[in-house]
């Protein structure tokens, strides 16, 4: 029994606990103002009515109560948030009234992101987010000093990789080699060649005038025009801002993705975490020969690996992401009789199984090729409906850990049955030469 230290926590664990950056409380202080602004936007008439009744002194007293209260809340929640890195875990203790302690096992980390929103960049702080499988709630440390966030990420990754705790802090950031950088010009051209950009723009320009002629009601027009304009902006300018300066790098810690014009994000996906890779080729990108590469990592919501790149470059990146995998050039089409099941689009489906991946293609105009390494297959399913049985066709589904399913549709029934058995066998043996969770151990 130790004597209670005045002001200290008696059951303090024997690890150095750290606090977040002192800037953190300020982001809470703005919360009541944001709520008020949101209310004013939501209900402008009532807001105006209330505003006319308010006098300057009332406004000042209100603010002088609300802002310190929010500041106090921010301060207390900052004061009660601690984190510590121990042997194999990251521990986060938060909560003012409802205490919550999260212990995150480092070797299970699926991805580590350091993001710097615009305001945080001004303040010189960053947000560290950790993706773990099965956690409904993202654990993030917001905010940390920029340098501290980098050091912490390097330390977490070093520990997750299996370095000894004493050396993990000194290992530092692993050297990265840049694989690809998307030039702004290519990004702009790719957005111009995307149907969604023009579609949303056209909708935003055409629908509100039509509604005006039909209803002559300002509010109806505004209620449709604002979301439509928002969607148009998000799919053109929004994507440009988010995908500007996109670069993909490779390091012993895994894949590095840097992106963003205003909000900079820096993601690290440790080796062996990628479950599925998709090459998407919209119709208009076929002439310049560009593709978009998407990937699935369990527990992570970002899915873009390369927003736009020439096909050979994208394929070389895929080869780095999934070691030993070459993107198959052609896929076997379903048998001709499949046209009775899926009239024109049956031509878009295809399947290749190589030693390393299960690759299924679909889509006729916007082609998508999904690659699943055999080692990442969780279960294999074969389904066949009555119409498919009439034409002796069946679908084979391959389920991966990221919650996705890759389907090879319209295969010959016998081939599908053979494929089912063979795929189960391959996914079992494919695991043997997969890398361990602690990749440097």
């Amino acid at each position, binding site marked *: 029994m130790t004597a209670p230290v005045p002001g200290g926590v008696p059951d303090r664990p024997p690890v150095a606990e750290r606090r977040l950056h002192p800037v953190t409380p300020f982001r809470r202080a703005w919360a009541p103002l944001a709520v008020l602004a949101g209310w004013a936007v939501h209900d402008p008439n009532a807001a105006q009515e209330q505003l006319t009744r308010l006098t300057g002194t009332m406004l000042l007293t209100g603010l002088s109560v609300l802002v310190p209260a929010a500041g106090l809340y921010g301060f207390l929640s900052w004061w009660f948030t601690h984190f510590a890195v121990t042997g194999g875990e990251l521990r986060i203790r938060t909560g003012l009234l409802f205490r919550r302690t999260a212990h995150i096992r480092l070797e299970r980390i699926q991805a580590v992101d350091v993001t710097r929103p615009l305001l945080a960049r001004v303040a010189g702080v960053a947000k560290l987010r950790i993706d773990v499988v099965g956690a409904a709630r993202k654990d993030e440390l917001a905010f940390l000093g920029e340098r501290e966030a980098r050091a912490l990420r390097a330390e977490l990754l070093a520990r997750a990789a299996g370095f000894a705790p004493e050396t993990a802090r000194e290992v530092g950031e692993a050297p990265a080699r840049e694989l690809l950088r998307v030039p702004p010009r290519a990004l702009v051209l790719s957005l111009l060649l995307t149907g969604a950009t023009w579609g949303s723009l056209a909708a935003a320009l055409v629908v509100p005038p039509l509604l005006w002629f039909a209803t002559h009601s300002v509010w109806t027009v505004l209620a449709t025009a604002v979301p439509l304009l928002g969607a148009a902006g998000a799919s053109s300018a929004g994507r440009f801002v988010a995908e500007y300066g996109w670069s993909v790098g490779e390091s012993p810690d895994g894949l590095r993705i840097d992106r963003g014009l205003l909000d900079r994000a820096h993601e690290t996906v440790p080796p062996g975490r990628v479950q599925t890779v998709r090459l998407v080729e919209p119709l208009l990108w076929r002439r310049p020969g560009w593709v978009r590469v998407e990937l699935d990592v369990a527990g992570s919501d970002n899915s873009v690996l390369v927003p736009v790149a020439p096909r050979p470059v994208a394929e070389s990146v895929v080869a780095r992401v999934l070691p030993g995998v070459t993107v198959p050039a052609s896929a076997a089409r379903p048998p001709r009789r499949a046209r009775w099941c899926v009239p024109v689009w049956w031509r878009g489906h295809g399947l290749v199984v190589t030693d390393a991946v299960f690759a299924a293609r679909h889509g006729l105009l916007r082609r998508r090729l999904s690659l699943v390494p055999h080692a990442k297959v969780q279960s294999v399913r074969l389904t066949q409906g009555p119409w498919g049985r009439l034409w002796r066709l069946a679908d084979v*589904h391959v389920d991966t850990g990221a*919650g*996705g399913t890759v389907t090879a549709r319209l295969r010959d029934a016998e081939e599908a049955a053979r494929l089912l058995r063979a795929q189960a066998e391959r996914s079992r043996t494919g695991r043997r030469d997969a890398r361990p969770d602690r990749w440097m151990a």
Partner: protein
Amino acid sequence: METGSPAETGAAGDEPVWRGLPPGLLRMRRLLLLVWTAVLALAAGLLPGLLAGPVWGTFALLPVALAAWFWRLLGRNWRSWRYAERADDLLIRRGVLWREETVVPYGRMQLVEVTSGPLERYFDLASVQLHTAAAATDAVVPGLDPAEAERLRDRLSELGEARSAGL
């Protein structure tokens, strides 16, 4: 094979030995069908019969005819369910019109669950459900004897541990 010799599993090499479900599940489902049919037939016969005249009471035959059809469907569906334990994976096959066959390698199992609701307990039944890291995996074997369900669960978790692999 590292564990689970073929003699013990009852599976010889690649040839899976399929097991059907015990008749308990079919009995339970058919009994439920009878109960619901009786209720529906009573409602369909009595209401029009009392309100509009006795001839309308023949509406009661409608649920009865439907039930006869469902009776057959239940039987076919029950017969279609089968599972096989192979040396390295579990096979589950089901469905009459919409057929589905699922293969789950033992190493991918995250969790094996034996569940049994109040009705199932009354009929002495239990179901075994396998969870992998993929949410789309729906590997469930319903209506087993509790003893068989427990045997399957123990065997699956033992094999899963022996062949365990992460994501």
